[in-house]
């Protein structure tokens, strides 16, 4: 309860807001010829060269300390950057996870040697990470993970399987939640996080195609993968706690609000044209805007809490649950609006973009934690459980 009450309107400091100008200049140039249905991939779209270019411009690892190659800026600066990237539909998928959560996790829990080794290449856009949490029998019930790392003389021996691992086929490393002691019955105890080099022998990555035809997530198999002892990140047995902190980074950003924004902008361009404009569509445009504006304000309030060093888990769950609802409303309502009319007058690119977003929309409320799980977290925050 008190957690939610403390969400107040927060201004982005002007030095961070100022970052919008050069970023926008860069994106206007970069994105001008990319069709909407490609831009609509948003953070599922990957382009390694694009990520490197961001790195060269100092726009990766923006919140990380300069000594590790980061920008030494505040979470607000990163908010501005990410908001622009998402709204332009920039292909940010390659570096997204590393920049958002892996590097901050390594900074928080890693040894000095791990920080020196992993963070600088992340900031250069040369090293990409994926999240190894889910398994076939550990979805919402994440504590049920069975992938196991056993201590050996050389380090750790890894066996098991991960699934739904976004971008594993293009990544160098996975930070995996694994069991290092006990059994699945021990639940949260005995879990640890390890960094797995995906090029090691015994690792097999198999991409999975989604219903839209895209390939962005994978199955990852570990068969007697021998890891060095410094593969462990953070403390042995503290994996659950670390993963919870990691999820606060994963859930709190504006990517839980803008997944359908490219489609919305494309539709709006049509509504702004004479053949597109109807009273119903104008009202719908206002309905969506009235949803997004307060959510953005809440999102910035959550960023403010991160900036103060907090871990706003419940607040982030609230923003994500509402944000993904708007993300899903956008394709549903736009389809209703466009297919009320003679669709011959509707630009083909718009229909194509709508079709793509309609097909991926179910995942908005699954990835990063399913809807019921978030509502359960809010209920806990309200003191009901």
């Amino acid at each position, binding site marked *: *309860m008190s957690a*939610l009450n403390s*969400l*107040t*309107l*927060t*201004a*982005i400091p002007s030095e961070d807001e100022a970052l919008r100008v050069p970023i926008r200049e860069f994106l206007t140039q970069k994105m001008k010829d990319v069709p909407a249905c490609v831009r609509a991939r948003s953070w599922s779209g990957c382009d390694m060269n694009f990520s490197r270019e961001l790195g060269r411009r100092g726009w990766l690892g923006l919140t990380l300390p300069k000594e590790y190659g980061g920008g030494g800026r505040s979470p607000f600066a990163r908010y501005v950057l990410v*908001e*622009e990237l998402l*709204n*332009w539909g920039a292909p940010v998928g390659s570096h997204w996870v590393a920049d958002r959560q892996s590097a901050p996790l390594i900074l928080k829990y890693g040894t000095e040697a791990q920080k020196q080794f992993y963070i600088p290449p992340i900031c250069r856009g040369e090293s990409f990470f994926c999240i190894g949490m889910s398994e076939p029998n550990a979805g919402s019930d994440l504590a049920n993970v069975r992938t196991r790392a056993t201590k050996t003389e050389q380090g750790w021996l890894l066996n098991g399987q991960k699934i739904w691992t976004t971008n594993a086929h293009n990544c160098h490393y996975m930070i995996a939640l694994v069991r290092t002691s006990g059994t699945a019955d021990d639940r949260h105890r005995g879990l640890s996080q390890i960094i797995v080099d995906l090029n090691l022998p015994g690792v097999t990555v198999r991409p999975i195609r989604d219903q839209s035809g895209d390939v962005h997530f994978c199955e990852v198999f570990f068969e007697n993968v021998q890891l060095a002892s410094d593969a462990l990140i953070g403390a042995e047995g503290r994996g659950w706690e670390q993963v919870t902190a990691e999820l606060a980074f994963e859930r709190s950003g504006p990517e839980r609000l803008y997944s359908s*924004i490219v489609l*919305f*902008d494309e539709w*709006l*361009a049509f*509504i*702004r044209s004479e053949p597109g*404009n109807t*009273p119903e*569509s*104008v*009202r*719908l*445009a*206002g*309905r969506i*805007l*009235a*949803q*997004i*504006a*307060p*959510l*953005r*304000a*809440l999102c*910035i*309030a959550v960023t403010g809490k991160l900036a103060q060093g907090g871990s706003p888990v419940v607040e982030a769950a*609230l923003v994500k*649950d*509402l944000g993904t609802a708007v993300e899903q409303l956008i394709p549903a309502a736009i389809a209703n609006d466009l297919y009320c009319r003679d669709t011959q007058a509707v630009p083909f690119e718009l229909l194509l973009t709508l079709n793509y977003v309609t097909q991926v929309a179910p995942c908005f409320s699954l990835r990063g934690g399913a809807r*019921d799980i*978030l*509502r*359960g977290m*809010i*209920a806990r925050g*309200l*003191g*009901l*459980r």
Partner: protein
Amino acid sequence: MDDLLCKALGQLLEDQCKPQLVRAIEGGESPAEFWGLLEESGFADALVGEEQGGAGLALRDVFELLELCGTYAMPVPFAETMVARALLARAGAHPPTGSIALACGTAVDKAGLRCAHVSFGRVADWALIQRPTEWLLLSIADAQAFPTIYPLDATLVWGPSALAAARHVPAALDVQVLQACVTAAKLAGALMSVFNRTLQYANERQQFGRPIGKFQAIQHQLSVLSEHAFAARTAAQIGCQASGCVPEILRVAVAKARTSEAALEVAALAHSIHGAIGFTEEFDLQLFTRRLHEWRQTAGSEGYWQSELGKMLVNLGPGLTLDTVRAASDPD
């Protein structure tokens, strides 16, 4: 916002604006004594400039004061009076003592001036009425008052002689925008009251041997209720982001559209969770959920403001929606 001010008004209302008072005034009793207490507290002049004897606060500073009017389902137009006094003072007119209702949607004919469904028209002392090029300030005692849909409201008609006594104030501001801004803030307060009452009820009411709040279905309904309440409160705060006493129409449109939408959702969830008791006259929930429906309708429902907002967005011409979202959501 000055926390002390907010606490002081909160305490005053906690002590004085109890459910029995709300019921009594709704039932026809005079609000004069209660209004006297409010007047004495000085809060009604919070937005009036210091040189004119007020506290000189900005709209963005008083959001929580306006919100409190909703938190306690205040049966007099206190929030409306706060903004009306400030605007009158700004326009060079000396604000009258007594409460001021805001009115629009007027018609002038042989019989005089008619304002239909004036919010708080039955309990206010004055009406500030929008005319095409000016405002009229009229005493409600001089009007014929007819009951309308809600007990605190009235349809008011001023005959020619009463009209002759009107104070004319030059002004261009749209009273509806002002009323929407204030109503959104009150909705935020009422939404939070309904949320807190429902949360408490879910923890107390036992069925199947445990509090109903232990059932996952109820927990998730409460989570959704809280999501709407907090998003709407943020929207209402956005609506009050102005450094003077004049709100910005873009922000107000967001505020009223979002709070009105939430009003419907939250009222429905709260009644569902309360079961039959919540639907009785005797139980206090209705004092707040009826307000949610009334205020959702006051100064334009969500559909009206969605259309207004849509027009603003569409007329802006090419560019990212983000820029309008920023203009609407960045604090002033």
